[in-house]
């Protein structure tokens, strides 16, 4: 297998006399919105480190890493949906609902006398202390319960969009309300708290750190690597991009469009559910109004990072960069003692600026 080059003139070779090769900076990640938003982020970090002596302290960096990890996992998930040209507005509500289910299941299974609890706990000799039959089992079951409700919500979103042909915006707007409402129904408006013998494991896994690196940040990096592999090196990822680029073409060439669409909504919902469960560990509770309007932060971060709402473009790097940028700005405004009400205004300006700069770049280069 010989690779043709501009210099080879052998006759059966393809020669590229009229078709120039695009320069490396016009290709791939370098030509994307993600690239210059990353540059902007680096510039911002440099400026911040000069402007505030606290910015680069370990405590502050840990704080930043933790804070952006709290929306970044959900942003990874919604990026799949956005690449197919869809949108998921139900992620904020779902974060809350999944967290609630997880803590309620955990508490319920840890309370002797509740249904099924005898399978998981027994009372110690003193008659008061609750002891787990198998340490960690309750944690696993309750987290799986939270993810299971996310799975169901994702399946319903995906089925409405892919099989019934409803608009993603309307479907997930409805689901935002449905899931938030269900959260109030099951909790009766009260918050729920992770409790029982496994609660300590739960806090260790959500608030803990490994050599100073916050646990949510580690999950984020692992999930981002998996996502990069799935998007760029599997047929599923290829089909996600193809659907966003030209849904009809994907269908005509034999891609199972409904199936891929349902899968992306499930991925988005599972990521949101996991995110919610992690947040509840950090908060120490799952209040009924938790993560209200987080869907907007998540979508904003994805879009700033370069995911295109028209579909076809996006990736894990962009999702994370978008989240980091939002958090660094928030952090910077706090360190600069700017009124925190300005934060939201600035986020809006950045969303528009990022998309605007991309438009200008596309025209100039």
């Amino acid at each position, binding site marked *: 297998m010989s690779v043709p080059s501009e210099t080879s003139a052998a006759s059966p070779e393809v020669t590229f006399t009229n*078709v120039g090769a695009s320069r490396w900076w016009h290709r791939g990640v370098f030509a994307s919105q993600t690239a210059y938003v990353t540059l902007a982020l680096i510039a911002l970090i440099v400026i911040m480190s000069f402007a505030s002596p606290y910015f680069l302290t370990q405590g502050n960096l840990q704080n930043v890493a933790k804070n952006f990890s709290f929306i970044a996992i959900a942003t990874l998930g919604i990026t799949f949906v956005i690449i197919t040209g869809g949108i998921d507005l139900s992620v904020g509500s779902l974060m809350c609902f999944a967290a609630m289910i997880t803590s309620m299941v955990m508490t319920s299974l840890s309370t002797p006398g509740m249904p099924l609890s005898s399978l998981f706990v027994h009372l110690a000799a003193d008659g008061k202390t609750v002891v787990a039959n198998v340490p960690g089992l309750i944690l696993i079951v309750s987290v799986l319960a939270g993810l299971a409700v996310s799975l169901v919500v994702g399946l319903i979103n995906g089925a409405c969009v892919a099989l019934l042909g409803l608009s993603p915006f309307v479907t997930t707007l409805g689901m935002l309300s449905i899931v938030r409402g269900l959260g109030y129904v099951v909790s009766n408006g009260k918050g729920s708290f992770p409790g029982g013998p496994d609660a300590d494991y739960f806090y260790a896994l959500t608030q803990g750190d490994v050599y100073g690196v916050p646990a949510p940040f580690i999950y984020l990096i692992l999930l981002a690597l998996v996502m990069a*592999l799935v998007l760029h090196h599997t*047929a599923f990822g290829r089909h996600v991009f*193809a659907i966003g680029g030209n849904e009809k*073409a994907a269908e005509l060439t*034999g891609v199972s469009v409904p199936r891929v669409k349902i899968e992306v909504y499930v991925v988005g919902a599972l990521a949101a559910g996991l995110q919610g469960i992690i947040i509840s560990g950090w908060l120490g509770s799952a209040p009924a109004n938790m993560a209200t309007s987080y869907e907007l932060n998540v979508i904003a971060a994805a879009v700033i990072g370069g995911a295109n709402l028209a579909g076809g*473009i996006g990736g894990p790097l962009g999702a994370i960069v978008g989240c980091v940028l939002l958090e660094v700005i928030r952090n910077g405004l706090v360190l600069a003692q700017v009124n925190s009400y300005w934060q939201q205004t600035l986020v809006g300006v950045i969303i528009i600026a990022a998309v605007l700069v991309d438009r200008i770049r596309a025209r100039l280069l």
Partner: protein
Amino acid sequence: MAAAALPVLELKGLGKQFGAIRALHGVDLTIRPGEVVGLMGDNGAGKSTLVRIIAGNFPPSQGTIHFGGREVHFHRPMDSRSVGIEVVYQDLALANNLTAAANVFLGRELKRNFGPLVLLDHKGMEARALELFRELRSETRPHDLVKDMSGGQRQAVAIARTRLSNAKLVMMDEPTAAISVRQVEQVLSLIHRLKEQGIAVILISHRMPDIFAVCDRVVVMRRGEKKADKPVAETSPEEVTALITGAKEAA
């Protein structure tokens, strides 16, 4: 017609209604291996409907399709592709945000096993795509994005797709509509090469010279019905034009 080769495709009484609209009515058509059949007709004559039924985009309302001697029922494009029917769509069905190689292999990516993982074989796909582009004499780089490509290159990508599998029938919907004179020559010589390999081709085109250059037979459709089906040697562009417009009722 020589009975030597069994027909690759046989349509009997094919009809299609969309609500109150009769798009296709009572079409019989037989195509043998290595035959190139030109399908002509004015806009709305039912050419595209016919092609889309054969391609499995939607089922016919009446009639039967036999492919390779067996009756077939297509529900999805994959069904027709799996028996050996390839289509080059008029709008080419390309995803602009993907590379040429990715588009060629869309829906049937080459994969490799890495332990438990099944990952895309990027190198294999690019190498094969490059081979196909070379065969088509198209200056197309497999890793370039389709959105940056010229009409001819896009056409090459769409045609390269049909060469991936062992197709028995290739249908081309206006393959020469949007490309340069030199590229038209390439597409026509490609059709010749398909014919030499015994592949049947249905060519939909408005360009009379193309039809008369490569086709063995020309089929004329008008108002959803087949009005003529004769060897090109026995007809003329004037007669075909008259059949298309309805100036001549049937031949």
